């Protein structure tokens, strides 16, 4: 019997439409796979009953001739997205037991398109992290292990649960969010496809905020086509989000033409860091070769302010976060911790002191500091100006190129605990993803090869704002050329 969890979204969609399979079958297979993969800790809330009910509804819908792209497709939802009546905590202790009375726009769009919810996925607390070691519910294990080793690796972050569930065939796709690389970097670490669309494509309504001017939702899937299908269902203008952009959503799947002849691809020279491992540089060169072979022009470009992107990000994101997280105060929802005889201020301090993990505290303090009297101009305003220069670098580059090709991350997945004591070393994980986040540009990571240790590595494609079509076209070509067929051995089912 075929293992239904191995289907791509596109295959399942076609099978469902033809009546070869049902959503109930697909969903049951995934529920079983999830049960068998508990050791990964990807799911923090499982919703099998809801999933089956949604599957049956989807089957009825398909039978009635109404089969939108995601009809009957079982997916996982990053715990950052509010799901009505289903616990949503952003993997923070401070949101203990929180059950929203509302649905995020992105998830609502997916349900409207017929998708089936399997459960809520683990992540770094409030999406702050690059290894998923910052979750109140414990770390997620990467389904991939190094060749010949039993050691566990991080799945990347913050969307660690999303990428692990997709890589381990416990979801056909997963929602994720990217503030500085949280879709692309973990996708690279797990051999999955991760797409961050242009800022403003996906509504942020109902998505727990980390850094409002950077947060953007996107899909994680196993193929580029699946990402195109899923992203199309997620996006769209939402009047409930003032930063959402009123633009027509193109048919992203139609971009998968395989034809990049005449396209010009830029290779930013500032991304060639001295410390980047040889295998990553080699893979990058390979990627350049594939695009050339497919008929693209490849040229060197310069993004002169690249090295300032991370420091800029680590001012802007914590500043916004310090304010966004002020609402977690123990008054209206979530954790409340009052010391014996304590007053309101004691309640705030104790609740927040207990409710937030170390990395969140670090960023809240950092953000509070850079916004405080006497420091605002030197840090926050300065960072906003440099951010403008970074965005301008991209605009200038896109005057002469259609897209940029870079590595997604400066390393493959690493071992637990290897970077968690050095915040800056951890932050450097996002060195290639953060610049586009600051500029609000679309970007994607496509699995392209294996590291010397046999761990997956991704290549990143970046395009101008709202040019996801070119993004998907190039990603499709890379995917085809890379022919990345390696799979993690399913040790977790043992």
């Amino acid at each position, binding site marked *: 019997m075929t293992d239904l969890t191995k289907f791509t979204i596109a295959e399942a969609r076609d099978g469902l439409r033809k009546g070869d399979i049902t959503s109930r079958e697909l969903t049951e297979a995934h529920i079983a796979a999830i049960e068998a993969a508990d050791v990964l800790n990807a799911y923090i809330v499982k919703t099998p009953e809801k999933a089956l009910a949604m599957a049956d509804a989807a089957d009825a819908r398909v039978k009635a001739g109404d089969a939108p792209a995601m009809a009957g497709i079982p997916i996982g939802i990053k715990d950052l*997205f*509010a799901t009505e009546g289903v616990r*949503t905590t*952003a993997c923070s202790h401070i*949101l203990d037991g*929180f059950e*929203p*009375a*509302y649905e*995020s726009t992105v998830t609502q769009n997916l349900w409207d398109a017929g998708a089936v919810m399997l459960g809520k996925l683990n992540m770094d607390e409030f999406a702050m992290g690059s290894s998923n070691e910052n979750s109140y519910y414990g770390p997620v294990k990467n389904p991939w292990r190094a060749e010949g080793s039993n050691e566990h690796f991080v799945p990347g972050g913050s969307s660690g649960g999303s990428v692990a569930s997709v890589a381990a065939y416990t979801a056909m796709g997963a929602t994720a969010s990217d503030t500085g690389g949280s879709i692309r970097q973990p996708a690279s670490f797990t051999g999955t496809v991760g797409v961050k669309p242009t800022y403003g494509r996906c509504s*942020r*309504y*109902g*998505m*727990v*905020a980390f*850094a*409002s*001017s950077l947060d953007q939702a996107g899909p994680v899937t196993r193929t580029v086509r699946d990402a195109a299908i899923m992203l199309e269902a997620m996006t769209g203008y939402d*009047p*409930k*989000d*003032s*930063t959402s952009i009123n633009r027509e959503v193109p048919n992203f799947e139609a971009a998968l033409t395989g034809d990049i002849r005449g396209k010009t691809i830029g290779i930013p020279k500032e991304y060639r860091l001295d410390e980047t491992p040889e295998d990553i540089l080699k893979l990058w060169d390979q990627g350049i070769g594939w695009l050339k072979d497919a008929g693209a022009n490849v040229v060197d470009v310069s993004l002169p302010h690249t090295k300032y992107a991370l420091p800029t990000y680590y001012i802007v994101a914590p*500043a*916004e976060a*310090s*304010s966004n*997280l*002020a*609402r977690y*105060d123990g*008054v*209206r*929802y979530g954790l409340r911790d009052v010391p014996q005889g304590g007053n*309101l*201020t004691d309640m*705030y301090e104790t609740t927040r002191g207990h409710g937030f993990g170390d990395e969140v505290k670090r960023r809240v303090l950092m953000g*509070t500091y850079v*916004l*405080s*009297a006497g420091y*605002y101009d030197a840090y*926050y305003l300065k960072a906003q100006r440099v951010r403008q220069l970074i965005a301008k670098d991209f605009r200038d580059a896109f005057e002469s190129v259609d897209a940029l090709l870079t590595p997604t991350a400066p390393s493959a997945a690493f071992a637990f605990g290897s970077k968690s004591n050095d915040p800056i070393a951890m932050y450097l994980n996002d060195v290639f993803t953060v610049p586009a986040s600051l500029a609000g540009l679309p970007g994607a990571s496509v699995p392209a090869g294996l590291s010397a240790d046999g761990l997956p590595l991704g290549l990143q494609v970046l395009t101008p704002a709202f040019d996801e079509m070119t993004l998907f076209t190039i990603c499709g070509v890379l995917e085809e050329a890379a022919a990345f067929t390696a799979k993690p051995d399913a040790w977790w089912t043992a």
Partner: protein
Amino acid sequence: MELPPNISGYRIAGATGDFEVVIGMEVHAQVTSKSKLFSGAATEFGAEPNAQVSLVDAAMPGMLPTINRECVRQAVRTGLALGAEINRFSVFDRKNYFYADLPQGYQISQFKHPVVGEGTIVIDLGEGKHKDVGVERIHLEQDAGKSMHDQHPDLTFVDLNRSGVALMEIVSKPHLNSPDEAGAYLTKLRTILRYIGSCDGNMEQGSMRADVNVSVRREGEPLGTRCEIKNVNSIRFVRQAIEVEARRQIDVIEAGGSVDQETRLFDPVKGETRSMRSKEEAHDYRYFPDPDLLPLEFDDGFIDAARDSLPELPDDKRARLVSTLGLSDYNASVLVAEKESADYFEALLAALADRGADTSKLAQKAANWVIGDLFGALNKAGKSITETPVGVDAGAQLLMLIDEGTISGRIAKDVFEIMFETGDSPAKIVEEKGLKQVSDTGEIEAIIDQVIAENPGQLAQYRDGKTKLQGFFVGQVMKATGGKANPAMVNQLLKPKLDG
């Protein structure tokens, strides 16, 4: 900072000399709108706790603000009414602080780039004296919820119904120099807001609250350190608060101390201000542009439409009543103080004109009647002009009856009293009670003869030169006619008979 001259000359005497008071005001005025500034929840006063709260107002995770067009429009109209510059580009900032009734942990406000810039309010200081008070800015911001500390022995209750309601913060320059001026400023601002309908001005319900900045200085000295008295909710309290705060500061200075810049609270029961240290500590609001909102931008067309929607403003109306109708500045000021009063007066004039009266002649009389008789009765009855039992038509009828000589001014007062009580028309009252003025010469002459005959002593005294007694005879005649005799005719006919 260059301040305008202290024209009212108000001083407070200290032990070591006179002090001048310098006052600036920050008025929070609730914008008249159906829904909140950033959510679709209702703004009505007096709902069940937390009933008029959306998930946005309660700052649920992932909730986002969306701006209400009407609130922007009303802020722009207000700016235009104050002759202020309108900023076509403004920015919403977050003002970060923790409080139980501030769900987001920040207030969305405008800090660096407010929607309205500098303007002017002309305040009325009586006796035709006016003063220009500078307005620094107007910005839009969210109101907080309400904390109730007295409902439970060890809990504070929080109601978020007000959370997110739109406020205009109208910031004056420190151009006020006395409690009277501060009162006049608030009165005038309230009048303007009510004229244009951007705020209902209801201070009891908290639609208008003032933060009052007070400092004192000896004449010619630089500005003193100011204290901010927060959330004063009536004009009377504003005046009291200024008096006691200025006195307190003078006492501190004269005792050799210095005034600390701080936030204070006015306690009307104790008649004192006290420090609010609890709110003061560590106030570092960490303003930054709200990344959930884009800059607020509009074009000239929007401003023009807002301007076109403005009614005649009180200063313009007062000037017009004085110049075209010849009203006294006092009467005109009283009539324009409330838009409803001015509307009533103007409708009354229109009704008189409909009845063929020459309004340029009757305007002053009509004004006196509205201000004296009508306002007096309304005041006594505790009613507002919108609740008057004597409508514009009835008022016009009454004034016409006097003007045509059908009833005397004296009788008119009685008729008005009945009108006010019963709502009946004056014609009906005059008819039923037989109050028509007696203007028949023969009838009046007969009564005069009778009165003279009955008072020979007084007549003799009159003829001896005590001519003031004419008043006595007029009174007797009026009495004999039940006040209905036409007084002008009585005088006219009486004189020759007394003189013999």
